């Protein structure tokens, strides 16, 4: 069943066309991975989906409803986001980062929010760090708090904007591990990432975006082993070489 559908999405900043008509659809429980060179519009695309950025043309449907007809705060409650730079609230503990949305947006009581926050922190392996402040956590731990913060809102879809790009190499694994668990648990995820291993093993669909357009889209095995487009082959070839 289709959860998210993009139809001819366009976005430009001044003279630069960042998205030039992007269309695709994903089902519930899909893990859609978007790859592409920097500047190809991947992050902009994600931000259009939760309306942190407004599109110029086209349409985006969430569960059949055009998102510009939904109150932006309601939309964002239903579509979580995990950021490259974590963007944790620096003045709140790991637990406080998770509870804030629960109390301020969902209206949970403090004890309910704490119980739920602790539950999600436990799921990302941070039960013992609930009282730590962001500055006291490693990058991998911060990102797992970021994931718990998004998850706890119980969204229908979570957007991941290069969640491991700001991490030291040895910390990437713990974040990808959490993302794999989510994928296997049926969380609907739209991920921009350079982690080819994750794309290959966890993605249900892989999309190669270049210059604001979808160049090729399909099951990851097909794009890796048998791409139709030369650009896909050379881009994925480069990234896969890097991993060796």
């Amino acid at each position, binding site marked *: 069943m289709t959860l998210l559908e993009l139809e001819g999405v366009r976005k430009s900043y001044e003279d630069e066309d960042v998205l030039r008509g992007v269309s695709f659809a994903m089902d519930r429980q899909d893990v859609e991975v978007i790859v592409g060179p920097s500047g190809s519009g991947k992050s902009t695309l994600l931000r259009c989906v*939760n309306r*942190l950025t407004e599109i110029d043309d086209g349409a985006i449907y969430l569960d059949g409803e055009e998102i510009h007809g939904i109150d932006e*705060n*309601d939309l*964002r*409650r239903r579509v*979580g*986001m995990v*950021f490259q*730079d974590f*963007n*944790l*609230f*620096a*003045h709140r503990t790991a637990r406080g980062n998770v509870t*804030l*949305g629960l109390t*301020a*947006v969902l209206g949970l009581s403090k004890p309910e929010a704490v119980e739920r926050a602790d539950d999600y922190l436990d799921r990302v392996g941070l039960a013992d760090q609930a009282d*730590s*402040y*962001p*500055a*006291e956590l490693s990058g991998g731990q911060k990102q797992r708090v*970021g994931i718990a*913060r*998004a998850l706890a*809102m119980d969204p229908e879809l979570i957007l991941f904007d290069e969640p491991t790009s700001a991490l030291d190499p040895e910390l990437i694994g713990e974040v990808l591990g959490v993302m794999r668990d989510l994928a296997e648990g049926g969380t609907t995820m739209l991920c921009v990432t350079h982690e080819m291993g994750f794309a290959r093993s966890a993605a249900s669909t892989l999309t190669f975006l270049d210059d604001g357009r979808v160049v090729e889209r399909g099951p990851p095995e097909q794009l890796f082993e048998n791409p139709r487009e030369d650009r896909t082959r050379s881009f994925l070839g480069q990234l896969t070489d890097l991993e060796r």
Partner: protein
Amino acid sequence: MGLALTGTAALGVCDWAATTGNPPLQTGDWAFVVGNWEVLLLGTLVTVLLTATSLALGFLAGFPAGTVEVYGTGRLRDAVSTAGVLLRGTPVVVLIVLFFFGLPIPRLLTLPVLDVRLDVFLAATLALGFRSAAYQSQVFRGAIQSIDEGQLAAARSVGMTQRQAIRHVVFPQAVRRSIPGFQNEFTIVLKDTSVAFAIGLAELLTRAENLYLQPGRDTAIMEVILAISAIYFVLTFTTNRTIDYLGDAYAIPGGDE
């Protein structure tokens, strides 16, 4: 000419001494300072009170003003930033005189014990308070702008309104980052309460002046001035230390991101 002046001055002193019966004191007039401790204490109380009311007004007007300068739009923002420029660009003595004579403040009662006219005190509070607001707004504006935009995006991404995000995420951090600038402002306002002497408010400097301007007491000028300098210093020093302590107590563990 010079001789004539000296002669007149000397004559004046002699005259004062003759009429009051006090021989002019020459040096080491500390006994005079100590003997008038009550006057200086009352002056200190007025100074502290005026500092408190001015800073409070400065905060109550300055915090929203700084917020408007960052998040506001259109005429409101223009009005706020213009008011700030005007207040910061006017000497504080001019402001205080302007507020006292320019505002239609009716003559009010005189506070007992402190012997301060309420309308004079009000004019001084308004002048010092709004000027402080103009500076405090810049402290808060800078602090708000220093909070990483990403945190705001993260707050919006869980469905918070702009207002909620500012209140729950930006303000708590901005207030902490304002502490050093606020300390500065506190010190400046405390010392600038002394310009209220221009409208005759009986704060510390005014009372000190009244002491050494008494007939025959011009020998005690240095002693009185040094004494009130020490009082101003102790007030700024202890308060700054207290704010340091509070800043540490409420600091974010592990430091800012």
